[in-house]
């Protein structure tokens, strides 16, 4: 029984300090929704407000049409997975998983059956009678997940569930989480500061900063068309350079350097002046590096790192800015430090932001809420 979650002008205050100044958005039924942002951005605070562990100082959170502001956590019918798993250390795996069901006064056989089913799903059936201290981190995580899901909650809340695992296990577990979520079909709110993890598991991502949502969108849309400079630099890596756009008869030209200019047809600028200062975000893979051509921004290679799939180059533009460039690695020589090169850009991929407000000026970019 999945539900949608609606946030209407939600406010969080600690004493007199407002940490979330008023959020409005909606999470769809059955969706895997991720709150992503740097630490201190309010994502965990918001999640705990949904769970009921943090109070709500203003606005409403509702599950479908039912406002839950004043409902105790016990009665919200949520499943929660904590950063430190919060496994009950004195209970066996089976009893941990059965804990929520026994609170719901189900028949013994029913509890047995459902526990056994979910242990199958998360693949820890062989550990059913073990004590938690004899489980690895990944196994404990599966117990925590099973315990949260088995009660068939209206919504599954996960607070940085993978941050205590090592890198390889983290990848395995995030695939497992995604798969289990899809199988159970439950509305899921997931909190993380790891953007790669967020991209891997989410249907939609909300990027947060300083208590406000910057953008909500699919992993693809927030990566390719970030709504502002914060999102552009928080998701993935990017080079930001400041340039002018010349407007001539409604035609916009980006002045990359003295000789190199490109037309930008899909930009919206409302101004009377001829030159507009902008910030340009060019991701490392949106550069094309060229040693032979005479077209492009003049640059000098400073250093390079070979990472198997790709070659990472660090280059200094003729104007003095340093940029990172990624090229698929090829057989043969790499470009040596000191080499003069030309950098062209994949102009349909780059993003251009207003100089002051840092809002994306490219056509059709949506903040998603």
């Amino acid at each position, binding site marked *: 029984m999945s539900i949608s979650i609606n946030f209407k002008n939600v406010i969080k205050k600690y004493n007199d300090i407002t940490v979330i100044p008023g959020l409005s958005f909606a999470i769809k039924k059955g969706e895997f929704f991720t709150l992503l942002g740097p630490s201190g951005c309010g994502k965990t605070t918001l999640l705990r407000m949904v769970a009921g*562990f943090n109070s709500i100082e203003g606005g409403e959170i509702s599950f479908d049409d039912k406002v839950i502001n004043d409902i105790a956590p016990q009665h919200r019918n949520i499943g929660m997975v904590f950063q430190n798993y919060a496994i009950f250390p004195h209970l066996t795996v089976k009893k941990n998983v059965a*804990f929520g069901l026994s*609170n719901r006064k189900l028949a013994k056989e029913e509890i047995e059956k459902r526990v056994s089913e979910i242990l199958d799903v998360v693949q820890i059936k062989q550990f059913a009678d073990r004590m938690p201290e004899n489980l690895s981190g990944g196994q404990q995580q599966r117990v925590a997940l099973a315990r949260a899901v088995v009660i068939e909650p209206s919504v599954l809340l996960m607070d940085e569930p993978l941050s205590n695992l090592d890198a390889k296990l983290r990848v395995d577990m995030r695939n497992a989480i995604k798969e289990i979520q899809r199988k159970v079909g439950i509305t899921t709110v997931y909190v993380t500061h790891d953007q790669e993890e967020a991209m891997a598991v989410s249907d939609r991502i909300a990027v947060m900063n300083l208590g406000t949502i910057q953008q909500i969108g699919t992993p693809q849309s927030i990566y390719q068309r970030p709504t502002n400079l914060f999102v552009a630099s928080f998701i993935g890596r990017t080079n930001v350079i400041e340039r002018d756009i010349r407007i001539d008869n409604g035609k916009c030209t980006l002045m990359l350097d003295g000789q190199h200019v490109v037309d930008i047809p899909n930009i919206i600028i409302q101004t009377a002046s001829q030159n507009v200062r902008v910030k340009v975000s060019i991701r490392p893979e949106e550069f094309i590096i060229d040693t032979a051509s005479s077209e492009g921004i003049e640059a000098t290679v400073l250093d390079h790192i070979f990472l198997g799939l790709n070659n990472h180059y660090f280059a200094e533009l003729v104007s003095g800015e340093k940029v990172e460039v990624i090229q698929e690695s090829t057989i043969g020589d790499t470009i040596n430090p000191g080499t003069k090169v030309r950098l062209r850009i994949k102009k349909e991929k780059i993003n251009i932001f207003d100089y002051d407000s840092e809002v994306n000026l490219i056509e059709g970019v949506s903040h998603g809420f």
Partner: protein
Amino acid sequence: MVSNWAKKRDVWSLITLGIIVLYTFVLVLPLFTLLKASFTGGEEGKLSIEYFLKFFGKKYYYGALFNSLKVTIAVTIAAVVIATPLAYIMTTIKIKGKVYLQILILISSMAPPFLGAYSWILLMGRNGVITNFMSNIFHINTPDIYGFTGILVVLTLQLTPLVYMFLMGAFKSIDSSLLEAAESMGYTGIKKLVKVVMPLIVPTLLAGSLLVFMRALADFGTPMLIGEGYQTLPVLIFNEFISEMGGDDGFAAAISVIVIILALSIFLLQKYVSNRKSFSMSALRPIKEKQEKGLKNVLANLYVYGFLALAFLPQLYVVYTAFLKTSGRVFVKGYSLDSFKMAFSRVGDSIYNTFLLGIIAMIFVVIIAILIGYVTVRRRNAATNGLDIISMIPYIVPGSVLGIALLLTFNSKPILLSGTATILIISFVIRRLPYTIRSSAAMVHQISPSVEEASASLGASNMKTFIKITLPMMLPGVISGAILSWVTIISELSTSIILYTARTKTMTIAIYTEVIRGNYGIAAALSTMLMIITIISLLLFFKLTGKKEVAI
């Protein structure tokens, strides 16, 4: 992260309120009664400082204040001076049988305080074995054990293990890389000790010293038995209160107030100093013990075994005398169990009372400590902070003072408790609580709040979460807290000596009164039993917790 959810009103607010009311009734009210009583003395119904003038007007009275200060400061310094090398040796040097030595040191600290005094009298007193032996064989007069010397020796031996235990904890938290870093920069030997090790243990030394100071200041049995003319404040209070020529309650109350002010000033001073010096450490790689060779090894072993011999042998001698044949009040040649038989027939009630009162008090201590420990950690607010402070008051109020306060408050209707077992249990409970609350709060601190949130998210009510999740996780600590409470309660003397009646006499009081009457055989038999109970309880504690140390 502050959990607002936890701040909401629930069953815990009610529990907090209930405990505050209880404390107001059995602790705050009696202390106010005491304060009020101390300011009477002039005309009926008027406030007066006559008692305080009386105290500072006569050397006989204010002398006790100086005696107390002298004893307390000397004991504190001696305990620190002896305990520091002891803990340092036990941490850094391999000593034979260390595990057992650890346990013995702890047991010696848990023995009833006045037993030490009694045993030293048996050895070095006017008619003591060593005294007689020396004067009969060598015609040497051994130094007088009565008075200041005796109190100093007995209390130092008794309280050194407390500082030792504090220090062992501190040494354990010093990472060996700190010492290695110091050595790599050229600090070795004594220089390393003074410049690196000592500053690291200063906060711990301060905390340990405070505890020793409070214990020494409040101790009643030792100066009463071995002090003779050397009167300390607790003895003076007792004498003024119980005096055969009609005690003066108000005057005893006034002296009590002076003691509390003294204790409070020292407490605040220590807090002030240690707040400025506090830091936290944790060791990934604790200091490892090394096998020393030659003279250093001999001296180290000698120091440890020497201390234990001094702390233990006198008490073992008491045990020995319990098995001597007696004729009337004197020991005669041969061995028998007569003293035990006499003890059972004459003061058998006291054994029963000790168990009954001790167990009831222990149960209350554990339950209340769990509840207070929980609310002060998980539901921080003005009320629980207040509760935290109130519950710590008995830490600085000497037992005899608390006894008087309780008696003054509950010796008349509507609440007539004097002479009942209830008033003894109340005193045991509130005196022990500060220690047990500290350890139960520490246990709650170790439990991640998210475990409780997980339980709530799974639909369990707050009370159910506490009973099914939090409490079982606290259980190991609860059990050890219970055993330690039991051990300290059964060796309690200073409050019960004021509150007991013939029907509520406990073993410690029986030992004390039998010693005073000169029935050394019975006293020794009872002491032996008390010691055995203590040792069995502590061994049980070690077995159940798997620990080799005790958090006081």
